[in-house]
């Protein structure tokens, strides 16, 4: 409508002032402009709430310790320093911890994707007795908080024994699987990892929406069930797999609960952050036995640590977000 008006303006070159005013103050025009302003306010406001802690942390990261007590300093530090980052880097053992975290997160995500896709495909495309009950159990595993069964699980991995085979063979009580990658592997490959029920649900929704004709065509062409899965279904499932992979990676990266229980000696990044204050305090004590860690400074260190922990996932997210948001639209979780 605007372009037509502009054309007419150019054609006639003369529009009376009242006509121009009428155009600007046209009710529909005004309402839509008001709408845009309101929408901008809401979106900017909520974005501020989301970004504010992040900005706070970034500004704290570069702040010298004395700036924390200076009430005139709000966001921009007066004394720019990189010391905090250096301290946190050293006490979190950043390179080693982050490589451990990265390796574990990638490996666990990989195995979780394999098992969850297989199971979701089974639930999505096949009919068999007890399907509803079994799927209910999938949601059930999501419901139960890990704290409920972590101790029996811990014991199970401490004295791992499948159906009594090991104790009959060796006479010992069972294998000690702690402090290795095995607990995570077993958890991932059997869909018992972190939030695996959710992934199964999401992927199942996707497979439910695939047209039956594709599958039937490939079966007619002679491919077996598993080949159909590998060659036909899997490539089209790339969007939802990317989404689930990102979710899984992020949640695994940030997890310190399972790490604490299953691999107490390996220091993942999340655990290093957990122990950052303790480490720094012991360092201070070793230098000066009477030293005490200032609580405000501890806050600052924690903030810097948080930043460094969330940095890799945010970078990955920034690269993948284009595919990520589009993928949910096309994935068929909805529709």
């Amino acid at each position: 409508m605007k372009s037509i008006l502009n054309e007419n303006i150019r054609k006639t070159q003369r529009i009376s002032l009242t006509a121009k005013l009428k155009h600007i103050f046209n009710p529909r025009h005004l309402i839509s402009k008001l709408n845009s302003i309101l929408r901008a306010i809401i979106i900017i406001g909520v974005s501020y709430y989301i970004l504010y802690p992040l900005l706070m942390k970034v500004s704290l990261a570069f702040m010298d310790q004395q700036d924390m007590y200076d009430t005139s300093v709000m966001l921009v530090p007066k004394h720019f320093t990189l010391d905090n980052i250096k301290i946190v880097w050293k006490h979190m053992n950043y390179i080693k911890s982050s490589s451990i975290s990265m390796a574990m997160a990638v490996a666990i995500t990989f195995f979780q994707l394999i098992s969850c896709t297989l199971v979701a495909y089974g639930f999505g495309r096949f009919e068999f007795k007890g399907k509803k009950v079994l799927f209910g159990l999938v949601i059930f595993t999501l419901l139960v908080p890990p704290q409920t069964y972590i101790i029996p699980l811990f014991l199970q991995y401490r004295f791992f024994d499948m159906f009594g085979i090991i104790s009959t063979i060796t006479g010992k009580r069972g294998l000690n699987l702690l402090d290795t990658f095995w607990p995570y592997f077993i958890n991932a490959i059997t869909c018992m990892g972190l939030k695996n029920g959710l992934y199964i649900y999401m992927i199942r929704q996707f497979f439910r929406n695939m047209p039956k004709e594709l599958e039937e065509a490939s079966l007619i062409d002679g491919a077996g069930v598993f080949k159909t899965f590998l060659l036909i279904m899997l490539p089209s499932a790339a969007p939802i797999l990317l989404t689930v992979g990102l979710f899984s990676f992020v949640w695994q990266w940030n997890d310190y609960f399972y790490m604490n229980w299953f691999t107490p000696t390996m220091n993942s990044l999340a655990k290093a952050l957990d122990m950052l204050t303790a480490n720094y305090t012991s360092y201070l004590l070793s230098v000066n036995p009477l030293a005490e860690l200032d609580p405000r400074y501890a806050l600052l260190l924690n903030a810097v640590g948080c930043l460094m922990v969330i940095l890799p996932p945010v970078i990955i997210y920034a690269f993948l977000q284009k595919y990520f948001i589009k993928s949910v639209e096309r994935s068929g979780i909805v529709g």
Partner: protein
Amino acid sequence: MKIMKRKLTLAEQRAFAGYMFILPFIAGLLIIFIPSMIKSFIFSLSKQIITSNGYVNQFVGYEQYNSLFFKNPNFNRTFISTITNMFYEVPMIIIFSFFISSLLNQNFKGRGLARVIFFLPVILASGIVMKIENLNAIGTVILHSGGQEGNIANQAIQGFQIQQYLDAIGFSPQIVNYLSAAITRIYTIISNSGVQILIFLAALQTIPNSLYEASSIEGATAWENFWKITFPMLGPYILTNTVYSIIDNFTSYKNQLMVLIINTSSAQKGMNYGLSSAMAWVYFAAIVVILGVTLPLISKKVFYYN
């Protein structure tokens, strides 16, 4: 006599293939999940006695559960407050994410950036980072009194002012309470809405435009469009989001009850795994009841397009 081996029908073959595909999950159930749940239940019925080489389970039956409700000073209070908190938060999260996703669905400049920002909390607010945020929040209220990070203190004060204002206008006290609770919790709501916004956004994009065109030809206003088209079409996803929000709230680390459970099971407080298992089971039973009641209620009102 020869016994003829019958070949499986197509349906039976498909069923067999289905079972094969979900084999990992069945294995997980049998090896990991069910034994652990059973053991945890047994734990909750027994007390741990620390002997020289570990601990021994002593079966005490329902005494643990009884003590939870009648003797433990913290449990009842925390339990009720957590459940009430959930009743406040989940509807707010759903309403908020519904609203935001319809905003984000419109065409405006910077829409991509807004979507990225709104989904950021999902990445930021999980696991260890959330735990530190919690500690930080408590710490900053004490240390930065009046300083720049007094988020919670500021919000509490502002909520109070709005509460007075609304009271003066003449709203009923319950509504005023609910609204001021919403305001003080706005930060939690925003951080917990990431996934819901994503789901609603994708859902909104599946509504065929022809519906809207047809209705505007018939002369429907935007308001009517919203209530007659958008809202019913999104029904199933409201259900999905409700389930997800309840589960998320229930298992989040910020939950006071979770903190209580974790503290009870920590080694410093006497290794009382039995008590904490009992707490977890009670909490879990409450959630099953809540879900079992809410889900059918919402499902009845949901309209499925196909």
